[in-house]
Structures are given as C-alpha cells and as structure tokens.
C-alpha cells in the first residue's frame, strides 16, 4: 500500500504534537520511525491507522482517503497488545471470523500460523495467561493471518526475550518479502532498525528532521539531534 501524507497537523489541548509537511511511503518497503519519547511517533502511527484524527492535513492510501475497505487492509500492533478473553486459537482466528471465512479454511490457516510462530502447543491455552513474549507472538500472528497490505507496529518487541524478538523480526521480514506488505515500525532499537528497515524517519518535536536510506541515515546523520540520539542508543 502506498501512502501519501500532506500537511498533517495534530494538536492536544492547543499544543501541537505533530506537523508532517510531506511524506511518501512506497508499497513493499519497511520504514522505521525513530526519535525521542514524546516526539509524536505513536501519534503519527495511530493517525495512519485511523485510530486518531488529525486536526488538519490529508493521508492518501493508494490515492484514496481512509475508508472501510482500507481499514480492513491495514492493522496496528503496539507493545502491550490486548488479547481477547478466550483461547490462543480463537484470538488468532478472530480476524478471519470477522471476514466470514469457512470453518475448515479458518482452522487450516490458524494451525499453519501457530506452527510458524512456534505457539502450536499453546493454541488451547487462555490467551490471558501468556507471558509477554508469547502474547506478542499471538498478537503478531493475529495481525498477519488476514494478510494486511499495511502493517503498523509500535515498538512490538519492547520488553521481550531475545528468542521471541528474533522470531518476530524474522516473521516481519518474511511477510514483507513474500507478500510485499508495507510495514511501518517504531523502534528505539537501532540494531533492529538496521536489521529490518529499508528507510528511516527521524522525528523530533512532531517534525521529521531526517529521512533516508537506513545505512545512510545511521552511518552519516546530517542533523545534530540524530547524531546525539544515535550516540546514546548505539
């Protein structure tokens, strides 16, 4: 999914928290959004997901404004995903139930994905009893099962163990390569940004201060804010 953002402004109680003049995101690429806390990264992602409204500006998804069809083709996942009070299986099957999949197809797809995410043995467990890493795997499996064109990830691997982190990163890359899914990921982990992202967007005080190819931005940052940020996190 291609995304065009123009003159996007968001305010909270008359305080401007986001001001994106222009940004184009191409289909099939992985974009990393980095920046200090309170920079407006999550707000931007939530606006793209249609979970918050901007004060001004436009976002076009494949040259169309946000509508029911587009919402069905994107998904958003944050670092504390909400899992339904039911089994792991039912959680992952939920998006397919919303899309009225037949029982057999649904079961087949869920079994495939739980095997892929190494959570097959957990499929009958109540989702609310899972550890942080397991819960995040279930949430990502649930987000990917309906094959969205746009995947929005807000620090999906914060506070999880290295094994789960590695698996989640692999699945993100796999989905991007195999299905040409556009992915936007917020991360504070520069190593993760290097491993996953084609391009990096650095946001500070609601504005994009640096944007470009990952290696170029990280190895040769132009602005001082980015240099300072990298010196702390690397």
């Amino acid at each position, binding site marked *: 999914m291609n995304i065009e953002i123009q003159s996007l402004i968001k305010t909270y109680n008359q305080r401007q928290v986001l001001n994106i003049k222009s940004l184009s995101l191409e289909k099939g690429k992985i974009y990393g959004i980095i920046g200090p806390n309170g920079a407006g990264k999550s707000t931007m992602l939530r606006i793209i*997901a*249609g*979970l918050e409204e901007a004060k001004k500006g436009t976002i076009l998804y494949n040259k169309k404004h946000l509508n*029911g069809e587009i*919402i*069905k083709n*994107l*998904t*958003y*996942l944050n670092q504390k*995903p*909400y899992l*339904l*009070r039911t089994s792991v299986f039912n959680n992952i099957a*939920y*998006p397919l139930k*919303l*899309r009225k999949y037949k029982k057999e197809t649904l079961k087949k797809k869920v079994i495939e994905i739980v095997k892929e995410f190494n959570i097959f043995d957990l499929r009958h467990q109540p989702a609310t009893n899972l550890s942080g890493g397991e819960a995040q795997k279930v949430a990502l499996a*649930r*987000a990917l099962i*309906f094959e969205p064109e746009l995947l929005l990830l807000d620090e999906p691997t914060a506070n999880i163990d290295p094994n789960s982190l590695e698996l989640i990163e692999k699945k993100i890359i796999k989905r991007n390569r195999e299905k040409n899914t556009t992915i936007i990921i917020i991360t504070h982990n520069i190593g993760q940004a290097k491993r996953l992202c084609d391009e990096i967007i650095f946001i500070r005080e609601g504005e994009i201060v640096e944007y470009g190819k990952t290696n170029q931005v990280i190895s040769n940052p132009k602005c001082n804010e980015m240099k300072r940020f990298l010196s702390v996190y690397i």
Partner: protein
Amino acid sequence: MGYIFDGIIKAFKLLIFFDKEVYSIIFLSIFISLTSTLISSFIGIPLGFLIGLKKFRFKRIVARLLYTFMSLPPVVVGLVVAIIISRRGPLGHLRLLFTPAAMIIAQTLLVTPIITGIIFNNSKEQGHQIKQICKTLGGNRWDTLILLIKEMRINILIAVVTGFGRAISEVGAVMIVGGNIKGHTRVMTSFIAMNHSMGNYSTSIAMGLVLLIISFITNSILYKYVTGD
C-alpha cells in the same frame, strides 16, 4: 441470646412449613427487585458504554453527577417518587402510590446509576482497548458492540448483581412509595423493619436469614462465573 436461636429455628420452620405469607413476601421482593434490575440493566448498560466510550463536552461533569447518583439516599428517592405519583402530584392520575409498580420505579431510579457507573468505569479503560483491537482487525461498529459485550461479560454481570443486591436490600424507598401493605406491597426488608419495631426479633431474624440466603445464592453464581470454581 435465646431470641437469636429462636429466630434461626423459626426461620427454618417458616421456610420448611411453606408459610404462605412469608413465601408471598419473598416472591414479591424477588419480583420487584428482578424487574427493577432488568429495567435498570436495559438503560444502564448501554448508557454506561456510551458515556465511557464517547468523547463529548461536559463528560467530566456527567461523570461526577453519575458518581453522585450512585450514592443517592433511598429515602430521598422514595420521597421524590412519592411526591410525583401522589394524588396531587404530576403523575397522580396514574394512581401508582402504594403499588408494586411504584416500588419498581423507585428501585429502578436507585439501581440505574449503580449499573451505569460500574459499566462506565470499566468501559473507559478496557472498552477503549477492545474498540481499538476490533477496528484494527477489520471489525465494523456492529462487530465492536458484540466484542464489547463478550469481553466485558464479567463486568456486566458484576454490575447487574450489584444492582440486584442494592434493590433487594433496600428499605427506605420501598417503605415510602409502597406503604408496607400486607399482601400487597410488603417485601422482605419492610417486613423486617416492621417486626423489629414491634419487638418480634425472631421473625425479623428469620426473614433476615432468607435475605442472606438469596444474597449468598446470587453471589455464588457470580463467583462461579467469574472464577470458574
């Protein structure tokens, strides 16, 4: 101490020997409390979700008013309802005073804010997450509503049982609007209050035990549902 044991023995006798008056009082109490809880649930559950999930002006004021209404003094509610439905009141022509209908109205006014308040409190936190997850997984408004009810079923049950508890144990409002008329508007709580004032402690204890048993049964059902034990 003797009258306490007498009360307990009398309670079992009244129940075992199917005392007609006692059973009619029990059934009327349950009927009035269940009806008012049901009406309150139909109003309070959607209203609680609406206030909790929607953004609107004066939401804070509405929330404060709601919390105030949750602790409405029953006698004040009884008094207001009695004034409105009394012969000279605006709804006097309906001739509702000293009828079970008046008692249902008074209890509904007491219970609705409790159910609304509990649902409001839960939905403003958990409800937003549920709404968000449904939207990001491709659900429409109808799907969101169904998911909200499914996910918050325990909160809804707690709200309804709390409301029922308030209704069945309430005495002030039903005494004023019902009048405690034998065979017509006498309920368990007004029966206990009346017998206590007449010095019939054992009869009061007997009915009090019945009230406790009903409370125990409803809470046991809730506990079983919530914990699965």
